[in-house]
């Protein structure tokens, strides 16, 4: 049985265990699934979908409430 798969993550080839699910990537990337939507070959996939060789992973920020600045709106 094949041990690993190769996927493209943000343009870089990355080797992952063969049984990596889409939902596992959120933890690996350190992003919340509530603020980021991972896309596989440009499409959304269920968190319990397995990744395949050659899959291209990209992502979308889905929330407006993320700040490039540190302080709150009232106390910049």
């Amino acid at each position, binding site marked *: 049985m094949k041990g690993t798969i190769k996927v493209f993550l943000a343009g870089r080839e990355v080797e992952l265990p063969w049984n990596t699910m889409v*939902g596992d990537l959120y933890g690996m990337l350190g992003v*919340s*699934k*509530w*603020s980021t*939507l991972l*896309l596989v070959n440009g*499409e*959304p*996939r*269920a*968190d*319990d*979908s*397995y990744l395949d060789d050659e899959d291209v992973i990209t992502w*979308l*920020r*889905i*929330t*407006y*409430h*993320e*700040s*490039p*600045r540190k*302080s*709150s*709106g*009232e*106390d*910049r």
Partner: protein
Amino acid sequence: MRKCDLCGYNEAVYTDHSRGISVCADCLMRSVRRRAWQVLKDELVARDKVMIAHSGGKDSSLALLLTKEFADAHSDMKLSLLSVTVDEGTFYRKASVKLAEKLANELGVRHRTYTMEEIHGLSIEELDFMLPADWKRSPCTYCGVLRRQALNAIAREIGATVVVTGHNLDDLVQTAAMNLSRGDINALVKTLRHERKMEEGLVPRVRPLKMVYEREVATLVVAKKIPAHLGKCPFTQGMRIGVRREIDDLEDHIPGIKVKALQTFSLISHGLSADVQLRRCRVCGEPTTTEMCKACQFKKELSTFLHRDLVRPLNLERVRRDRDLWTRT
């Protein structure tokens, strides 16, 4: 291919962790439509003139689509629709205005764009440029207040009986949690309770996506290729960021907690009474709880930086000329 747990046919695009199932785009759309239509059924009345506050972003675009579908499926209600965008004058908004027009055209709903510049006399881009870097407030703080006031004034002057907004479950749970943590019971009641009275020029709001997760909205917009802008406003910030992270962490550990929290907040709000006396602002005449509304207070503050007097009634001439634009269904 991971197939949908409901239809067993299409590829699953979304995992509902609270139900432990993964569903395809069609089944997700059916589920979201059912929840949104229930809200519309409960909160709209026959012959309503429904103005959709349509920024062109993912939430308001889906809200427009579902409201149009609802109006078509309930033609006996004789609803009239109008899609309206307030262009704050940011580079970011340019792309979303085009997408808002595109979707409205595709759906056969009339669309109008009014600019913050014409209504309030300033754009957010100009504001960001002129504000000192160390100023206590960000452009986002001003934008939120001025945009909300403009939307309500447009709705009232254009003859809307109700405004549909794209607020989703995540937005409402965050807002309710923020209201509770600030001890602002009036705001909590006003946020969660739908009341059909036009109080001092304040047009009632309906939020069809209030039981729909933001993640469901984003998934549907991408999977169904609904014309919508998925970019992020460059100015956004606020207390909400921290609140959102805490609530998201809770949802990760206890799937479905956002739905339960909103239901609980709504129940609590029904047992409370809002102690708010609305009146008209002495400067602009818009509804407010104070003698001078927040928008006028902000505009007075901004007049110093923008070197002109911004404190005056809103310019709604073009809006009033558009009163007969409604799309009847």
